[in-house]
Every structure is written in C-alpha cells, then in structure tokens.
C-alpha cells in the first residue's frame, strides 16, 4: 500500500511537474506574443492619416472617426461613406462661404458652422421664391392637415414648408455642382500604391 501510495504520490508529483512545465511554456509563449505585439514596429499603431482630399483641404482619419462616432450616437446604421460624404460636402460649402467672406481667421468649428449657415441662407435660400399659387395648391391638397384653418392663417407656415423642401433640392443641386468641379480623392483604407 505504502509503495503504491508512494508511487501514486510520485506519479502525481511527476504530473504536477509536467503541469508546471506546461504552465511555464504557455506563460512564456503568451508573454512573448504580447511583448512582440506591443513592441514590434511591424504592428505599429496608425495614429492618423489622410482619408480624403477635397481641393486644398483634407479629412483626417481622426476627424472622420470622431464624426462617425457622433453620427452613430443618433443613427447606429449610418454608413461610413455617408458620414464622409457629409464631411466633404461641408468642406465644399465652407470653402465657398470663405470665398465670399474672406478674412475670417478663426478655425473654430462653431464659427465655420455659422459661416456655412450664413452662406446657405444668403446664397441659396435667398433665391428661393414660392409663388402664391403653389402655396394655395398645397393648402387645397392638404386641407385635413390644417384642420379647417383659413388660408391666410396658415400661409406663412405652408410657405416655410415649401421653402424647406425647395432649399433641400437646391442645396443638393449646388453640392453636386461643387463636387463636379472639385478635386476629391477618397481613401478610407490605405489604397494601392500608384503606378
């Protein structure tokens, strides 16, 4: 019994040794992998890069990522391409706005937004005219929406609705024109080398 017990203790000890050896080599392997993953140049972190060139401006990956994160807070399904497209459109509009208002020295995003808004108001919205016939037609076709209110009561409201619709169309048209005449290069991932 004793010898059996001794043998069993010896076997168990040997088994423990093997276990320790396995732990040792596994640990060594894990540490090596971690070390090379963190220290090796071949796996260096990309800190930033250019993802889009829009005439003389660029969109950086950091900016794009920030915009994507913000956009996905309100719409989780928004595509990467759409976010980048919106950034490009904003650059094009801002470029036009600055051309009309040179001397704006700030680079604060809030100021830029105000400038773009002002540009849209003055350059695009101001040219929109809604004829009275169109307002009347809208009123006639949507009487239930205005729950028996007189035309004159809702005229301004209808005009605003129609202006917003027209503005959207005009803005899209304007952006298309700007994009057609712009130099735009997009590389969301690092693209192939040039010939």
């Amino acid at each position: 019994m004793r010898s059996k017990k001794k043998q069993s203790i010896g076997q168990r000890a040997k088994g423990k040794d093997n276990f320790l050896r396995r732990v040792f080599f596994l640990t060594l392997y894990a540490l090596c992998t971690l070390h090379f993953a963190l220290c090796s140049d071949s796996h260096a972190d990309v800190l930033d890069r250019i993802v889009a060139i829009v005439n003389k401006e660029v969109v950086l990956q950091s900016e794009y990522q920030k915009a994507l994160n913000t956009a996905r807070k309100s719409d989780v399904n928004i595509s990467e391409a759409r976010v980048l497209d919106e950034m490009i459109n904003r650059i094009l509009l801002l470029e036009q706005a600055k051309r009309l208002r040179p001397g704006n020295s700030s680079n604060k995003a809030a100021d830029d937004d105000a400038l773009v808004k002002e540009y849209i108001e003055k350059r695009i919205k101001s040219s929109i005219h809604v004829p009275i016939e169109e307002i009347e037609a809208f009123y006639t076709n949507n009487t239930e929406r205005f729950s028996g209110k007189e035309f004159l009561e809702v005229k301004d409201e209808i005009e605003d609705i129609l202006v917003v619709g027209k503005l959207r169309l005009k803005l899209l048209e304007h952006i298309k024109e700007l994009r057609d005449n712009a130099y735009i290069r997009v590389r969301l991932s690092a693209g192939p080398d040039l010939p």
Partner: protein
Amino acid sequence: MINIYCDINHSKWRHSRESGNPEKYRGKILAFILLLTSYFLLPIYTYASDSDKVIRAIEVEGLHRIDKKELIELIDLRVGRIFDEDELAIGIKRAFRKGIFYDIQAVSGPYDGGTKLKYVVKEIPLIKKIVMDGNKKVSVRDIKKVIPYKEGDDFREEYLNKAKTDLLNHYGRKGFPSAEVTISAEQTDKPAEVHLNIQINEGPPLIINTVDIAADLRWYFKVSEGDIFDKDAVDLQIKNLKEYLKSENYFNPVAGPYEFRDGVLVVPVNKGQRLEMSFIGNYAVSAKDLKKEVPFFEDGEVTDEAVQEALDRMKSVYLGEGYYYAQVAAGKRTEDEVIKLDFIIFEGKKVFLKKIEFEGTSISSEAVKSIIPLTGGKPYNDNLLAASRDSVLRFYNALGYIKTDIKEIEKDFQEDGSQLLLKFIIAEGPQTKIEGIQFEGNRDIGSSEIENALQLKKGSPYNLVDIGDARYRIISLYNSKGYMDARVEVESRVEEDKAFITFKVTENRPSVIGKIIISGNRQTKAKIIEREFTVTEGDTYNYEDILTTKQRLYKLGIFNEVSVSVLETEKTEDGKLVRDMLVSLKEGNPGSVEISLGYGDYERFRSSLGINYNNLGGYHRQVGLKGDFSAVKERYTFSFKEPWLFNQRDLLFTALLIKEKTRSVNLDTRDVLYKIDRTGMLLGIEKVIKKEWRATLNYEYSFVDTKDVEPGVILSREDSGTIGIGSATPSLFYDTRDDPFDPTRGSLHGIVVKFASKALLSETEFIKGTVQSSWFFPVIKRVVFAFSLRGGAAYSYDTIQELPLVERFFLGGRTTVRGYSNDTLGPKGADDSPTGGNIFALGNLEFRIALGKGFGLVTFMDAGNVWQLLQDVRMKLKYTSGAGLRYKTPIGPISLDYGHKMNRDRGETSGELHFSFGHAF
C-alpha cells in the same frame, strides 16, 4: 497576469506540500518565471504610463520630393516632446499644404522607453514626359492642349478618365468618331516620377463626299469634298459665312445647324432680310462712321426701338463734334425682302465753347476749370456737360463744401449761335472743416501714433475721400504691427460748418507667423527660397515685409507667380494668434534663349546669340553660353554664376571662359590696325554693400595673341606675338542713378585698379587704374544735365614703360570724344596709326531733352586725350561739340550723334557721325 501569478503560487504551494520535491528546483522555475514576467511586463507597464508618450525618434518613409528635415519641421512634433494627437493632426494638415502628398500617415510604436513616430508618405508623382503613339492626323500640340496633364505637373490619377473622355471628344470633333484611347502612367526609374503614355488608335475618319449648300454661297464656304469632317473647321466656316452675309447687309442671316450623314454635309442657310441704309445731309461725319452706330447687326432685327437707339447714338456723335443743333430723323420702309432706312440729318452750325465762367464761387475759376472735361476754345460737346457738373460738385465736396449746389448752367449763344458762353451759377454754401478727431477702442497703439499716421488734421476741409484714406491708413498701421483683423469704423458728426470725426477701432488680437509653408517649388530647393525671406517664424505679421519677400522671390527670375497667404489660426500663444504662412510659387521655364541684332558705325552689323539656364540643380545657379559677332569682334563666353557664395547674401561669384577675336580698324578706310586673339578665364566675386555700394574682385588670366599689327602702332616688344597676362582687379562703385540705362538723377562713381604680376602668373607686370565720376541732374521737366569725368593711368614694371597693346588706353568714338572716330585720339605711330597710351583724361557734358513719344535730343561737349607716358601730359586736350537724337528702348536709347572737332589738326575731318545703342556715359 495577476491570475496567472496566483495560480502558479497555488500550484507551487500544493506541489511542495504534496510531492515533497526539493523547493530549490521549483524555486528556480518560479524565480525564472518571475524574472521573465518582469522583463516582459516592464515595457508594457511603461507603455501604458505617461512617459511612453515622449517622442524618442522620428522616421520618414516614402519621401523623395523634399528633404526629410522639411517634412519633420512642418509637422512640428519634436524628439523629446510629449506626443499630442491634436498637434499631429494640425501638422499633417500643414504638411499637406505643400501640395505634394496624397497621404501622410503617422504610425507609432514603443522605442527606447518612449515612442517612435514614423511618417509614411505617399507623394504625388510628377509627370516627366508625355509619350504619345498612334496620333497621325491630330498633332501632339493639340492633344497636349486637350488633356488636363502637362509635363512637369503633378500626376493626379483622378483625372485619367477625364483626360480620356476629353481626348475622345476631341477626336470626335476632328472627324474620328471611332478613335480609341488608352492613357496610363508608368513609373520611371526615379521615385515619384512617371511617364504618361497615351496610346491612340485613330480609326477611319469621316470623309465629306458632298457639300450641300446654296450654290451662290459655296465659294465662301471653304470646306471641300474629300476633307475630313472636322466639326471645328465646319463651325469656323459657318461663322465666316455669317460675317460675310452681314457685310452684304443681311442683318440676321441664319446658317446651320448642319447635318452630316453618309458623307453628305448639309448646311442650310437662310439669308433673311437685307438692310439698305442711306444718309442724307451728313457732311461733317461720314456715312461709314454713322453706320458704326446702328445696332441692327448685333440685335439681328430692325425694330422701332433699335432705330431710335441708332438716332440717339448718331446725334451723340454730332454733339461730340460740336454740332449742338444737329437733328437726325429716319424713314423706314420694306420692299420685298429689303428693309430701307433713310437717315435724314440736319447738322446745323458747329458751336465753339468761347468761354466758361463761374458765378458765386470764392475759389479761383481757373482751378475749377482745370478739373472739368469741357475746354474753352474748342468745339462744344454737350455730352460732357453732365460730367462737368459732377466734377464741379466733387471738387467742392473735396474741399469741404458739402452743401454746394449748382443752381443753373446758363448757355449764352453768340455770333449767330456759333459761339457759346457757358456760365455755372454756383451756391457754394459754407466750408465745413474738421473740428475734432477722436479715437476709440485703441489700446495697444496710442492715439498720438495713430494721429501721426492719419495725415488728417484739425482744420482740414471735411472730405469723405480723405477720411476714407485716413481710415485705410489706420488699418495699415495696425496691419504693420500684426493686427491683421483690426477693423476701423468712422463716425462723422457735422454741426453747421464743423465736423467731428470718431475713428472706432476694434483691434482684435495680433498675429504672429507660425510655420512658413512653401509650395509649388518643383525644382527649386526650399533653402534657396527660404534665404530670400525677410520674415521668420515667430515674427509679427507685417504686410510690408511680406511684400518685400514677394519682390525678392520675383527678382530671382525663377518664378512666374508668387503669392503669400495667411492661413487660419491654429493656436494662440501669449495672447497672439499664431498663423501659418503659405508661400505659393509657380516656377517658370529656367531656360532662355537670347537673340539680338544691332548696328553700329564701328562694328557695323552686330548680333548675339545666348543660351542661359538660371536654376542649375534647383540652386539658382546660372550657366550660359553666348556668342557675340560683328565686323570687328567674335566672342564666345561660357559663364557660371553663384549668387550666394558661401551662403552669403549678395555675394556673387562669377566664372567666365572667354574666347575672343578682335580687330581694330580704321573707321574710314576699314584697314586693320591690329588683331587680338584672346583666350582667357575670369573668376570674380561681387558684393553689394548696402544699396548703393558695390565692390568687386576679379582674377583674370588671358593668353593674348596680338598679330597683323601696323608697324606704327608697335611701342613695346609685347605688342606683337603671344603673351600671358595674369591680373587681379579690385574695384569699388557707388551708384545712386535712378535708371542705369537712361538715368535722370543720381550719380555713379567708381575706381578700378588692375595689377598684373609674375606672382599672378603674368608674363608682364604693370599697375593700371581708372576712375570715373558721372552726375545726372533734372534741370527742368524733360531736361537732364549730365556730366562725367573719367581718367586713367598705368605704370609698367617691365623694362619698357609702355603697356602691351591690349592693355593701353585708347580714346575717340561714340562713348568718349565723339568728334573722333573709334580709338583714334592720342599719340600716333610712324604711319600715323594711333598707338594708345598709358594715361588718359576725359570729360563729357550733355543736355538730354525728352521730346515725347520716346524721342529725345542731346547736345554735348567732350574733351579728352591720351598720352603715351606721364611726361607727355602737356599735350593739349581735344574738344568736340555736337548734337544727337535718341529713341528709347527697354535696353537703353538708340543713339545717333554728330561730334564736331573744335580744335582739329591739319588733315583731320571736321567731325564724325556715330550710330549706336546707349548713352555715352
């Protein structure tokens, strides 16, 4: 990791308890694992800490177009500083402004206890060459005009489709609808450089077999059967055809749109109605001139409105000529396809403006008259009356009479209505003067400093133009001190005849220069551009400095365009906005060919041909090869210039290799007096000291072969045969002339000393000095008085006192003593040939009178002579006087002078005529 550690300890504990194996063995393993863990975990721990953000190294990969240092400077993350991702983003954007990158990627990794940054860039390649193949009917030049690529430009792959479409469209227009085009870029053996290959298969052209057009117009439509159907050519012919029909009085011809099908070109033409105009009663203005006033051919119709417009314009023409009473009427009728317009004109008398008077003015009438476009004594132009009225009002307003009114302009016709007395009846009103000037909002610049810059004082007439200028001066003052966003508003308050002005200043924050980004320099090295900058990082923005920098860059002659823009604010330091400055450049062609032709009485026809390249290796070094040819000279020069020797501003180094054959001839007989063949080199430095001072030091070595010398000319043994002359020539000049080619004021003074010595490898030894002092004074308008004194002396150390022929002084000719022909003054040899001498003195005096339209007149007096040796100086001076004509050109005036000898010797001619370029001095 902690779990692993606990587990190991736990096993060890159990193992030691259960197995009873020596602790030593397990301890070793444990210790080893611990050590290993520490070794591997240490960098991980370190990387997670703050210290890992310290930048330990920066590498750059993929950069070929600029220096690595320039990119690192632009991104502006430095070794030793803590990495900041916002700064990196700003840096990448800044570097992108260079305009040579598609992508700048920043990657990092742990390095030496910190971070190593690597910038991996993808550059925009340059197009080295555009190679075309397969184009037979469309020229290379045409294709290059069509595609959006040029040799030497950036290759942007995004334009490839556009290039292909544009080229196919062009081929379509040129009659090759089935053309095929392939455009591809091929990397050259240099990085960031491509060849653009354009493969063209033109395909069969469309051929015009028949031209279907009205028979009477076929002659004027220059497209033939058998031609390729070139739409551009057809469009041009249709345009020409319309012009022809209009010249035949068809005022609205319609040609086209044409059709081309199965080889048949159909061009429909509708001539439309014809217009016949007749003019009756016009004597002072021709029918041709009156026809120019009709708008029918531009409008394409003859409406009643257009007829009225024609009448108004014609009347205006008559008024302009002084026909105040002129009346024009028109009669219109239509017969078949012809519209007939008869213009009936009553010209009346021509009216002259006898006198212009002003009533009610306290200002001199002459002063008011000088500012109105109407002029007394000339035909009266009624068209100018309104403009005259406005001019008077503006004039009064400028003097502070802001309430001035012109009550009436009386027209008093005299002498049967042919003379007009024009009287402006003016109510001047009070003169408003500035009583007070105030400044508000200025904190950093004191009111007294602004007041000094203002040029507007209390008591000055109140005038909006002056006030506007003053406002601009305040803005300029602020701009010069870096306040680029300063705004100034003006508030004026007028009380009776007193005005109170307040300039409301919004200073905003001053700006300093951040990084200076240079873009567009494809060949020129950045340091060549940077050394011309008068501003540097951290300087306050100042428009004048920026302008100076621009001027210096233009002056290099390398750039066609230089623009400086201030970029948006990136950061603020010490309350100042730090803004990057972008210097955008467009390089011109560094190579040039120079050809000139001319004529001079001595040289006869002369010409020169030069090839220069002024940006060798991108270092603004200049090389050139030039040949000058005339009847008396043949000269080849190879030159090299380094404008910044030892990187020193305005220290010019010049190296010349010269091969020259000169003949000295007798101007009258054209007999050769001697010939000199010279092969030499010159190394020189020139330093501009301040603006007016210039010093040079040259070393020259020449082999001079003097041959075919008239015996009488020979004075020394070196006057014939070959001699090597090595010399050093220091010189100093002081030049304040306003224009070196045609000065009107200022002066030029210089001293040049030439040493030839055996120490300088010379076979002969001498010292030779010349001095010059020239002055230019504007006497009255268009008249300049100029005088010059020049002199020189030489001394030979050799056994013979006379210098070699090539080094001796000669006088006479178009730039010295103009009564004598070239080099004929001074001592003569046995055969009466001029020998030249060791000493000369020369004085010139001129009145230069500008006659207008580039022509000028000159009267002059010259005095001078050459003496063989110092002891001969007692010989008298030779005087000449004369006159000449000048015609201005960009490289100085063309001159024709006649000089008359005032104390001529027996046998000498009375004077000489000289034709050449440039002034005498």
